């Protein structure tokens, strides 16, 4: 059994009861300390949900999942800072699904307000929403919220753990607590007596202390420094355990083959051809698809392919053109939102130059490097589950529901995630594993999807169309009217995750457009929606991954129509509106030596998107190399308020940009005959070593509040590249992916 398995309790009823009771529990429930889901054995102590001590030392339990963003390292650093443990002694584990690990920062960001202009009053309102998040027990790694959520909580957990250890030492030694100090994982008495935390653990667990104050930032040793990541040794030696690497005695290997016409059922199937193959043991009916259990994953793949299946049709239009037409029809409906509506976009401005443009962005797959998988063991009265999950509580609850179990009968271990990007917020792969394992009680079954199954059964970043009108006069933008049509992602997610209907303006649909810090006097952003059954999901930076491109591309067009340098044009609109945003543009201007002029054969584009509380600007340089276009260089500046680990923030900014550029160049999911046409990396490629730009990153810390880093690097990358291509070729890229219009180097 895994380590976290032994120290995580099996009963998490408190969280479930809170959901059932809803707000009826109200203030009473919200103000209760969360029950500690960790169980200590002899000589161990779970001082709080985040700090576990045994005879080997201290383990920091992280409420968020490590999917590459370095979250375990930084969360551990926050706790270790207050706890006085040496970095080489820090160990981390993922927390089990539990109410104690709710994400306090996520729901606050879902409010339909412009984050950059949030007043203290609105921050207060968000705090109330955060309490609702606690009631719902949403244990989510997403929305670039982990640091915002963890900054105080992990430090407070470390500080209070240290305080209890001091108190325990004080009792044991009979020396006043204020005479004791802590260092390197030990309490030290004035006479030099050293008591290791491990020796004090059991007694400390029984000690109650008031929350001590947090350390002054001037004394920080870990926070703000680039710490050696805690996952590196395991990840370079092949010993890091991803979901797909879980191995249990007697384990079987399985795969699924679901209806490629998404949402369609299965009329009939014949398992016989599969059962004739070597190693195939079982074929299971999953209703809208089948699973094959075998002695080896590859033999399961062969078996799944051999099953003859008669599929039903999909509920949605089968062809891509019809899907586009459905989005277009949305423009003729009442708008779902007008979250920005400043001045009067319909009032004529005498002497202004008007322009219009339409943009299109496609569906996108997440394409995590590790294909979807989960491992499950059904014991008759319980389920044990191992997988990489961005919402372990949802995985637990949905697996329990699928098998008719109580959530308390499901134990889940979160492994490393071989990429998340929002795909592993969904729990379909875990539920399949649970259903399949139920067919083999007592036998652990690992269910691994083929890459093709993974790409063709994703929850896709929705396609969208943007229609923009604008006007410029005397070198300034005087009007911008953006209409964004697409599919209701928030409603689909609310129904799928929480079982609740979603009403009202969908902020996600227009984020990255309505909330940009530009002072345009007449400025409207409206969202229009068309319903769909196509599975939609959160794709790194979510709505901003769409709207960053639409909105900033049009800003660039306005700048050119105004006869202005596109960087100066943006700065003029931004300076009085939000200084940290303007600072990012100035930083990329200075880093790149931006002059607004480029030699023949070179193009440069600038772009800016404010997303997840973080302004981010990018300059991208492209070069014509004998007809092929290379993305040669890039400059990124962001302002995260406080960079808790600069090397990790830098990696996230570059990685976020690469994820966006890969999509901008090559990414599209299209439908034909009701099926996704792309299936693997040859038709859904990404940037590689030889096509990655040389990049410099500047991290600014002038913003008032700490903000996230995982997603904000993605949105501006796409318009920055398109704007650079315009500079190089004179052709305006209004549709992604760019490979269809431009001869990009591959």
């Amino acid at each position, binding site marked *: 059994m895994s380590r976290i398995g032994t120290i995580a309790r099996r009963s998490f009823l408190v969280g479930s009861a809170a959901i059932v009771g809803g707000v009826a529990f109200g203030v009473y429930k919200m103000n209760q300390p969360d029950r500690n889901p960790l169980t200590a054995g002899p000589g161990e102590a779970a001082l709080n949900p985040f700090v576990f001590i045994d005879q080997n030392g201290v383990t920091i339990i992280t409420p968020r999942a490590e*999917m*590459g*963003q*370095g979250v375990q390292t930084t969360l551990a650093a926050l706790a270790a800072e207050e706890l006085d443990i040496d970095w080489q002694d820090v160990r981390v584990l993922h927390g089990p699904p539990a109410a104690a690990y709710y994400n306090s920062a996520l729901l606050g960001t879902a409010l339909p307000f412009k984050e950059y202009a949030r007043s203290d009053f609105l921050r207060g309102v968000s705090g109330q929403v955060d309490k609702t998040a606690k009631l719902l027990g949403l244990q989510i790694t997403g929305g670039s919220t982990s640091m915002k959520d963890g900054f105080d909580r992990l430090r407070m957990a470390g500080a209070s753990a240290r305080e209890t250890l001091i108190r325990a030492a004080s009792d044991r030694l009979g020396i006043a607590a204020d005479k004791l100090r802590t260092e390197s994982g030990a309490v030290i008495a004035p006479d030099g007596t050293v008591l290791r935390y491990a020796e004090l653990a059991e007694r400390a667990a029984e000690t109650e202390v008031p929350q001590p104050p947090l350390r002054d930032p001037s004394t920080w040793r870990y926070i703000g420094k*680039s710490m*050696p*990541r805690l*996952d*590196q*040794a*395991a*990840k*370079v*030696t*092949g*010993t*890091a*355990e*991803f979901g*797909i690497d879980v*191995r249990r005695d007697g384990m079987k*290997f399985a795969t699924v083959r679901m209806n490629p016409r998404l949402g369609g059922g299965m009329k009939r199937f014949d398992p016989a051809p599969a059962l004739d193959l070597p*190693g195939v043991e079982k074929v299971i009916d999953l209703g809208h698809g089948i699973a094959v259990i075998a*002695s*080896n*994953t*590859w*033999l399961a*793949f062969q078996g799944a392919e051999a099953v003859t299946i008669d599929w039903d049709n999909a509920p949605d239009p089968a062809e891509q053109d019809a899907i586009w037409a459905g989005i277009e029809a949305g423009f003729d409906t009442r708008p779902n939102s007008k979250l920005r509506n400043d001045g009067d976009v319909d009032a004529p401005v005498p002497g202004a130059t008007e322009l219009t443009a339409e943009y299109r962005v496609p569906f996108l797959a997440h*394409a*995590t*490097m*590790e294909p979807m998988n989960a491992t499950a063991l059904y014991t008759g009265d319980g389920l044990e589950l191992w997988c990489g999950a961005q919402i372990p509580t949802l995985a637990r609850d949905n697996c329990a529901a699928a098998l008719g179990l109580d959530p308390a009968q499901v134990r889940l271990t979160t492994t*490393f995630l*071989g*990429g*998340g*990007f929002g795909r592993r917020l969904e729990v379909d792969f875990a539920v399949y594993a649970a259903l399949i394992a139920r067919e083999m009680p007592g036998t652990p079954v690992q269910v*691994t999807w083929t*890459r093709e199954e993974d790409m063709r059964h994703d929850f896709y970043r929705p396609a969208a169309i943007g229609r923009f009108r604008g006007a410029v006069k005397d070198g300034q933008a005087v009007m911008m009217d953006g209409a964004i049509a697409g599919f209701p992602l928030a409603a689909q997610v609310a129904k799928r995750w929480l079982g609740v209907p979603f009403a009202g303006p969908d902020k996600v649909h227009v984020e990255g457009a309505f909330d940009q810090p530009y002072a345009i006097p007449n400025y409207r952003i409206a969202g229009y929606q068309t319903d769909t059954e196509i599975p939609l999901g959160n794709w790194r930076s979510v709505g901003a991954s769409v709207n960053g491109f639409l909105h900033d591309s049009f800003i660039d067009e306005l700048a050119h129509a105004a006869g202005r340098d596109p960087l100066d044009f943006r700065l003029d609109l931004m300076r009085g509106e939000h200084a940290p945003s303007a600072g990012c543009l100035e930083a990329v201007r200075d880093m790149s030596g931006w002059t607004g002029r480029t030699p023949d054969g070179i193009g440069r584009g600038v772009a800016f998107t404010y997303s997840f509380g973080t302004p981010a600007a990018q300059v991208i340089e492209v070069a014509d190399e004998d007809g092929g276009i290379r993305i040669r260089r890039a400059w990124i500046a962001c302002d995260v308020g406080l960079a808790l680990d600069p*090397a990790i923030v830098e*990696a996230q900014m*570059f*990685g*976020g*940009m*690469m*994820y966006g550029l*890969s999509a901008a160049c090559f990414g599209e999911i299209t439908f034909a005959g009701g099926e996704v046409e792309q299936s*693997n*990396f*040859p038709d859904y490629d*990404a*940037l*590689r*070593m*030889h096509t*990655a730009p*040389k*990049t410099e990153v500047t991290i600014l810390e002038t913003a008032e509040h700490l903000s996230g880093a995982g997603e904000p690097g993605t949105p501006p990358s796409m318009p920055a590249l398109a704007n650079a291509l315009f500079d190089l070729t004179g052709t305006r890229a209004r549709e992604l992916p760019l490979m269809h219009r431009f001869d990009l180097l591959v």
Partner: protein
Amino acid sequence: MATQLRINGETHQVDLPDDVPLLWVLRDEIGLTGTKFGCGVAACGACTVHIDGEAVRSCQVALSDVWGDVTTIEGLGTPDAMARIQQAWVEQQVAQCGYCQSGQIMQAAALLAETPDPTDAEIDEAMAGNLCRCGTYPRIRAAIHSASRKMQEA
């Protein structure tokens, strides 16, 4: 019918059909899970191992076609005794999600064995088949250069 394989210096008898790819022999039969499944069509490089020192995509090599000694990431070094190239990876803090890194390291190790001091262009050419969705390429490049220096100093 059992097939005999030499993997990381040890001999294994494998009782699987001839056409099972080496990748799935390593992962599901031998239990060496450091070698990763990414695409199954030699398009991502996550499954890269060495056969007689040559970097190959193990998802494309059938069990019966394995022509020599196999080395996987586990055979390169361990957390307590890392190979120099693995040390260089840690030093440069390369890995994000880490899933592709076994393949990246095996590919780079084969490059360095043949070209001890590769240019950026040579790195580009050798590493073009190894996909990373997190975007760790600049640090991979830095780690290859760093490993090259370490190996030449040694």
